[in-house]
């Protein structure tokens, strides 16, 4: 029994953390939004930096060609890929690092913490092991995953993976008619699949796997990776808030010296510290093929979501009016939390899965 990161997990995490801390500036995060300015777009604009207004989709073009400034995040993504991060779960003989979920979670925590926009979970955790193409591993091609008729990052991904029961199918972006959607977190680059694409036989889909176990494992990695992103986002918002309340003075003292503020932030930290070991344990269970891995993963998603939402709420409150602006960077992280809360199953859905698994199904 040892509950600690392996040396290779630590090395990958540290390398990614160093790169992301240096490269993912607020400008890079904002560049991931339609209009490229992270929610500032509406100021003084009439055409809106709104999806649909950019005119780049659907259609041909270079990766992410529909985004003004979109290339800023792509540069970082390729640097992350150059570390091998996209191929974390890909065997070495296929050009990957040959690591497992134990390394995936700390890596994606750092991605979440950095705020790097893009489909990191979809590409690294879900797709790359099934689709270890050189262009994907090099960071030239992004992969999105369809949930119902919504596709987060559907505006920027070249490859779209969809689950069909026990199978995973992959589509080229042009195989589907995609309608850009306005989302609270603009960096989600959300698209909706046109009804015509949903009815009738899927056009151009390629079977990635029809093995139920492989399909389910990929899905579980998506849930796990999203939990890791949420924990990373929670850390970042806590750090921002601690920094702020230490220097913001009212009544002649830092507001962080007030117990009302301290206790709110302490509760937020407890929630994150509660969630993180569960995500790491779920990663271990997935990698080891342990019994109960799915239920651990669901527990991780529940706790990570609840923690990140508590931190987001607390962070905004402790920032006062500053937290209620789009000029300040906090909203870039909070909005992503609200999007990810419902992604890959919301807490209610995962509690229901756990209930079935531990034999307390509804009466």
């Amino acid at each position, binding site marked *: 029994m040892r509950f*600690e990161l392996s040396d290779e997990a630590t090395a990958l995490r540290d390398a990614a953390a160093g790169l992301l801390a240096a490269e993912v500036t607020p400008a890079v995060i904002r560049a991931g939004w339609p209009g490229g300015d992270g929610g500032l777009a509406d100021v003084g604009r009439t055409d809106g930096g709104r999806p649909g207004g950019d005119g780049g989709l659907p259609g041909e073009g270079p990766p992410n060609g529909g985004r003004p400034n979109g290339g800023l995040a792509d540069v970082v993504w390729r640097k992350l890929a150059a570390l091998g991060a996209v191929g974390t779960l890909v065997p070495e003989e296929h050009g990957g690092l040959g690591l497992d979920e134990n390394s995936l979670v700390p890596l994606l925590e750092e991605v979440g913490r950095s705020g790097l926009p893009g489909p990191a979970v979809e590409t690294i955790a879900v797709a790359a092991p099934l689709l270890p193409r050189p262009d994907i591993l090099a960071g030239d091609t992004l992969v999105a995953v369809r949930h119902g008729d919504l596709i987060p990052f559907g505006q920027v991904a070249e490859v779209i993976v969809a689950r069909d029961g026990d199978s995973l199918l992959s589509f080229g972006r042009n195989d589907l008619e995609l309608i850009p959607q306005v989302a609270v977190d603009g960096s989600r680059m959300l698209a909706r699949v046109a009804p015509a694409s949903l009815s009738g036989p899927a056009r151009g889909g390629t079977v990635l796997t029809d093995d139920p176990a492989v399909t389910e494992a990929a899905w579980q990695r998506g849930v796990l990776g999203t939990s890791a992103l949420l924990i990373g986002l929670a850390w970042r918002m806590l750090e921002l808030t*601690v920094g702020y309340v230490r220097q913001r003075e009212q009544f002649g003292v830092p507001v962080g*010296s007030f117990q009302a503020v*301290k206790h709110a932030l*302490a509760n937020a*930290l407890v929630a994150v510290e*509660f969630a993180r070991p*569960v995500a790491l344990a779920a990663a*271990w269970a997935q990698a080891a093929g342990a019994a109960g891995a799915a239920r651990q993963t669901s527990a991780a998603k529940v706790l990570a979501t609840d923690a990140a939402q508590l931190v987001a709420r607390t962070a905004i409150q402790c920032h006062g009016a500053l937290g209620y602006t789009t000029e300040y960077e906090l909203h870039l992280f909070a909005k992503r939390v609200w999007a990810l809360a419902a992604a890959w199953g919301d807490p209610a859905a995962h509690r229901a899965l756990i209930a079935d698994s531990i034999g*307390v199904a509804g009466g």
Partner: protein
Amino acid sequence: MDLRWSPAEEAFRGEARGWLEANVPRGLPSGDTRAGFAAHLEWERALHAAQWAVVSWPREYGGRDATLWEWLIFEEEYYRAGAPQRVTQNGIFLLAPTLFEFGTPPQRDRYLPRMAAAQDTWCQGWSEPGAGSDLAAVRSSAVRDAAGGGWRLSGQKTWTTRGAFCTHLFGLFRTDPAAERHRGLTYFLVPLDAAGVTVRGFPRLDGDEGFADVFFDEVFVPDSDVLGTVNQGWPVAMATAGSERGLTLRSPGRFTASADRLLDRYRERPSPALRDRVVQSWIEAQAYQMFTLQQVTRLADGQASGPEASLAKLMWSELDVRLHETALALLGPEGELDGPWSRGFLFSLAGPIYAGTNEIQRNVVAERLLGLPRGPRG
């Protein structure tokens, strides 16, 4: 990461489980009554006779030299088997680690074996009428008795758990009246049958005589019963408090066992509207277990337990209240009856108060883990 138990650990678990299943008493009365306390001592002595009382201690003091991991396993099995909370806990889990760290060899030899055997039973002497969360405000004093080679203790301790039944008390007394606050305090070990000690039991929230006032009227304590250094009692007391907040008092096995019983309760009488809360309690017990495995790995590597103990205390105490609230909701109208769940609920309400209130713990977390500025407080 390797979350598997070794074959040796599994064997240890099997041995513990086998013994506990065969020996755990059923239907013991509350340990917070005079008659119940005596019955619990019988159980604790049976544990000791089979060498299960203090598994993590050295063999010379009655333990098994068990690793922290094995101790966690034993605790899991102990509560899984439905065994009662330990009435010796303030000695074996709180004072003992402090004796191992600060005690002299004669003190260890004098107290540890009898503590393990449930011959001596220990209560805490921290709180006073004017000193609760603000422990450094203690006013009970110890005056030098040079002729006797010791000290004369006077004052009052209160809210002393099982003080009416225990044989000994450990606590802080002011030895330097001129020193400020947490300076000038000394940690004493006191037999409660000493001349000048008066104990008055009084009921806790559950109605049992689980609390006591302990009055000291020039009670003589020899120098050999000072734990640590005179006027340096504060860090010794903080070591004890750290044990109380964190791992040693509240192992995750107790909460995973409670969560499992909650699931059983739900299965007997499913109430779909409460299912999510039941699941949430199970999740939280699992989370505390995983958090603990992470902490124990660090402790096993020789890292000191620090303010993380405050995180742990916030976790287990709050999850325990939620778990019992959910249990009472599941019981519906039956929940008002005196029984294990209603008693467990009342006891859970003590968790956020004892071992330093959760408000104090949040201050510690905010200041020492998050780095927020200290407030206007001593």
